[in-house]
């Protein structure tokens, strides 16, 4: 990817794009890795009143006093608003309190179903992935969730080998039929662009491409004929301020280094 010509890394662009999906005052269920940074960046820029909920049993509405790499780092517990049981915060998720959550994925399909469990080849397990963690819960129960992942042809497939975290299943009405109370994926942020979902067909729709990426490149690296929004946008680059904050949050570039 030709991001070298920009003074930010691709990961930084993705984190910034993720952060911008959070509106001020929203209750955010914060996942591991990149989303952890996305929430903190949003908090410190346009969403100062966002509240973060963590599956470990943490509620906090201020950034940690020091950079953190995992949500269980002690600075993330320091002056938290609530330290509690996982079942308590899962209750908040299940009872509809959570506005938005972020999850990463190894494999996603055109209806936003996510697989982080098993990569299969003709009925045999070829790769065992770590599993759901809280991802299935977030995809099932948050008012909306956002998927953050790398854009490769073997990752964006017509149909996932295993639904770990339900998206829109096989299309319109599937979540309701299945008994899911609400929600569904609202965006997929990849290393190439941003996809949303057709409000009627519930199918993935390319709405924004990252700087230096071509539509053809995206189509070539997507496992099905990806639909494209008429008003296709260019993903806005990170602002100086966003990058400055982000580099304070991840000073060694562990998550956002090139």
């Amino acid at each position, binding site marked *: 990817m030709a991001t070298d010509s920009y003074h930010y890394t691709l990961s930084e662009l993705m984190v910034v794009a993720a952060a911008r999906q959070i509106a001020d005052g929203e209750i955010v269920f914060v996942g591991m890795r990149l989303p952890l940074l996305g929430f903190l960046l949003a908090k410190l820029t346009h969403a100062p009143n966002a509240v973060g909920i963590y599956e470990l*049993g943490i509620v906090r509405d201020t950034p940690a006093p020091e950079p953190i790499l*995992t949500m*269980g780092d002690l600075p993330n517990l320091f002056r938290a608003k609530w330290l509690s049981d996982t079942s308590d915060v899962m209750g908040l*998720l299940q009872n509809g309190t959570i506005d938005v959550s972020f999850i990463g994925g190894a494999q996603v399909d055109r209806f936003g179903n996510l697989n982080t469990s098993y990569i299969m080849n003709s009925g045999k*397990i070829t790769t065992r992935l770590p599993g759901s963690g809280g991802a299935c819960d977030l995809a099932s129960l948050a008012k909306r969730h956002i998927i953050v992942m790398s854009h490769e042809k073997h990752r964006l497939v017509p149909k996932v080998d295993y639904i770990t975290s339900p998206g829109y299943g096989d299309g319109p009405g599937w979540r309701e039929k299945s008994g899911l109370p609400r929600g569904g994926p609202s965006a997929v942020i990849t290393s190439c662009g941003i996809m949303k979902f057709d409000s009627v067909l519930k199918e993935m729709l390319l709405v924004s491409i990252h700087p230096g990426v071509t539509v053809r490149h995206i189509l070539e690296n997507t496992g099905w004929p990806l639909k494209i929004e008429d008003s296709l946008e260019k993903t806005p680059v990170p602002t100086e301020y966003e990058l400055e904050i982000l580099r304070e949050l991840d000073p060694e570039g562990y998550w956002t280094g090139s």
Partner: protein
Amino acid sequence: MAPASKLMSLFEAIKLYVPDGSEVVMGTSLETLIPFAAGHEIIRQKKHDLTLIGTISDILFDQLVGAGCVGKIRAAWVGNVITGSSYNFRRSVEGGDLKMEDHSNLTVAMALKAGAMGVPFMPALTGLGSDLFKTNTSLKKITCPFTGKTLTAVSAINPDVAIIHAQRSDEYGNAHLWGNLGVTSDACLASRYIIITAEEIVSPDVIESDPNRVITPGFRVSAVVHAPWGAHPSPVPGYYNRDHNAFIEYRSNSKTPQKFEKWMRDWIDDIKTSDDYIRLLGNERVEKLKLKNHLLSEPADYGY
């Protein structure tokens, strides 16, 4: 009138309460307070056919799998939180040597809550439409008797033993645990035996000064073990920070069975006591991980 002390060595505790074939719940605070010392003793005692129960287990489960102690895992996530996939686990599942029951964090939490509450199942709304139902026989779809809606029923899990790392405990098993609590309380109430490993063994007066901070009633605890640095490399609120490098290094040290064999020799086989382990860590690392900024809780008055 004073009950018998439950204080014993880690060796005794694992020998007595973790027989081969046990269902063991560990890592119940998720990323913090993971009982690595106890897990390593299980490896030293070459336990086998264990069923491991957990939410996100971080690398402890991968180590037990690599050492050949595990026949089955009932968990939501098995990997290395900071690096992703873990290799022993991948090798065993892909090689067909390890049975997996696929949960989500919520279904594990509800399975243990059902066990704690003494009911055979708990209802949930998660996972409907997912394939967890295909690889987890503890999940069934039911119809709500009041609303008629479809729900996920999660079968109770009652582990044989819960292994919990706490900050401080008295010798009778009354332990203070703080920070994020994960599924610890329900895991204790659901389990037949409870082993507490603690950073410090303190007098009952200390524990009784704050009964709300006690994680589970001591009369149900089977063994108490003094295990300073017993959760390293995971963080222990009030004691030490997370040793990120240990997790990052473990990734390459477990890439091949050969590398993992060497890692076990270095970090497990030759370690007999907490002192050995702390010596292996070395002063510099220990000092680096200790708390630099302290914040003491405002007292609560339990007088009358």
